């Protein structure tokens, strides 16, 4: 088991080089630079521009810049934002809980709806229920997040007025940030009205972000269930006289979850990239929103550091999923 974890951890090194190189190259490929962005439309006198470029270290050749960036990162220094002058790691740490909160509920939504939907579709194969689940999930998978999010806002927030349009909590509430998770902070502050407000702000972004993983999980669960339901041990479980429900949940679903867990792990990466769009549309104060602003301001340290941290988290989650795979599948654990 530990050898397996170590082997997986060793793969982090090439991934780290790839991610830093890619983030560095991509942000420098975008036309413009931070100084140009600061000067705005009226321009800046060339001498000041040269001085600022030198101050930011942007007048050096690109390989040197990359080398010094990596050297700093290895010492644990992600640099400071060029616009706010706050440390990148510190800014990320402040904003990340908001993204985690959103991503967690999106995944929860996707699992709680997607797994039962997939099971029902498999058990009632080729019935109206099956076609409905498959049709809706195909539509959900094909829908661009930004468009789907706008539709949700237009219908539920604007037409029906059920949910707020954007943000994380209504402006009248001021809750001290202890954990950074709004639902927990409002409860710790004992402010139920604020908790309700935070919850209602969470609903639409959760649905918007959770729809694609939901569709993937429903389809994956269905196909895994269809395969498992044909297995001998399912027939043998029925021959024992177990109830239909117990055969489906305890025996079939348990086995079908093995591939589903892998898919969930892969979805976490997609979830974080989807969060960037969702956060921008709902003005959700998380790292996705922050990254978009960083790109617009050509804030190199923010973009590079943000991408690196997100990549690190995705790698960690996938490692956890691989370990979990061993827990859920005895054949791997004792293999």
């Amino acid at each position, binding site marked *: 088991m530990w050898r397996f974890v170590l082997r997986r951890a060793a793969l982090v090194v090439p991934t780290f080089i790839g991610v830093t190189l890619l983030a560095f190259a991509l942000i420098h490929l975008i036309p413009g630079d931070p100084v140009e962005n600061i000067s705005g439309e009226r321009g800046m006198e060339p001498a000041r521009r040269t001085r600022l470029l030198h101050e930011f270290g942007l007048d050096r050749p690109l390989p040197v810049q990359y080398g010094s960036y990596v050297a700093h990162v290895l010492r644990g220094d992600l640099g400071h934002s060029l616009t706010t002058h706050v440390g990148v790691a510190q800014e990320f740490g402040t904003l990340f809980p908001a993204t985690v909160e959103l991503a967690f509920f999106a995944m929860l939504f996707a699992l709680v709806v997607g797994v039962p939907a997939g099971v029902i579709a498999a058990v009632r194969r080729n019935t109206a229920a099956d076609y409905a689940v498959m049709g809706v999930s195909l539509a959900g998978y094909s829908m661009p997040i930004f468009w789907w999010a706008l539709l949700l806002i237009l219908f539920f927030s604007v037409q029906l007025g059920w949910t707020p349009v954007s943000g994380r909590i209504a402006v009248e509430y001021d809750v001290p940030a202890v954990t950074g998770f709004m639902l927990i902070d409002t409860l710790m502050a004992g402010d139920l009205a604020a908790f309700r407000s935070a919850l209602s702000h969470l609903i639409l972004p959760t649905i918007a972000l959770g729809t694609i993983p939901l569709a993937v999980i429903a389809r994956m669960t269905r196909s895994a269930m269809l395969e498992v339901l044909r297995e001998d*041990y399912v027939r043998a*479980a*029925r*021959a*024992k*006289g177990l109830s239909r429900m117990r055969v489906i949940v305890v025996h079939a679903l*348990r*086995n079908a979850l093995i591939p589903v867990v892998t898919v969930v792990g892969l979805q976490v990466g997609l979830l974080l990239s989807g969060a960037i769009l969702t956060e921008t549309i709902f003005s959700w104060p998380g790292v996705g929103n922050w990254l978009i602003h960083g790109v617009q301001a050509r804030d190199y340290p923010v973009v590079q550091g943000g991408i690196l941290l997100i990549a690190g988290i995705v790698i960690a989650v996938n490692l956890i999923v691989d370990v979990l795979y061993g827990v859920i599948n005895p*054949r791997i654990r*004792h293999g």
Partner: protein
Amino acid sequence: MALVEIRGLHVDFGSPARPLPAVDGVDLDIGAGEIVGLVGESGSGKSMTGLALMGLVDAPGRVRAERVAFDDQDLLALSMRERAKLAGGRIAMIFQDPQASLDPCYTVGFQLDEAIRLHGSAAERANPTARRERAVSLLREVDIPDPPQRLHAYPHQLSGGMAQRVMIAIAVAGRPRLLIADEPTTALDVTVQAQVLALLARLRREHDMAMLLITHDLPVVAETADRVVVMYAGQVMETGDVPAIFEAPGHPYTQALLDSIPEHNEGRARLRTIAGVVPGIDDRPTGCLLAPRCERAEPICSSERPLLRGGGAHRAVRCHFPLLKP
């Protein structure tokens, strides 16, 4: 009074307008404590007969019968729920591939416990410790070494023979009156086959348990069973007591099956085989099902399907020209 009484059992696939019969009017009696060998080639409907008796035929398969009675209880009149209660309890079943029949995600102990919890005594159902003791004694009964240790084993840690012993332990947890064994030794090594058959024979003696032994392996039937039912393309071709049928088969198909066994034909240079294959479920002849493959077929065989004609003492043959005059 037979323990199992089946009359006119049909299992149909295909559309109701054009049914495709997998089992086509099977009559079958099993006496208490009797071992009946159900023999036939692949696709003869023998496994489907066992599954129908268990109530495990899945859609799109449809089961109908004039009578399916177990212990004088009409199974067809039972609700799905009552039927499920019998399965695994008073009627149990084991399958061809024991390793695939155990759920890979759970330990032997868990899967035994499931059966004991449903079909054990009242004390066992209520008390986990009693269930554990029963599980250990069941594993001991099927000759598994070091039972307490084995409770924690996962199926992939067991050999095929061990896995089949575990399946048998699960099956007898409900103290069944009838055990349906569907090719119980086919997937096992020859030496292990003999051990498992000996185990089944012993359990049958000790528990006074009847057994429906489904197999294509005639020597296994000759050694183990009291009576044989030979099936072909969904119908019973011949039934009779074991020594009688092996000494003097009444149906050309039974004769052909016997001619293809090495043990039965010592000294002969070549074994005989039956030309052709079992007709497909959608391609059954109108006359005798065997007519296209039968060396003794006459014109009437292709036009008129023979009836299963009894000859007293358990013997019946479905042939226009039986080898032995009843």
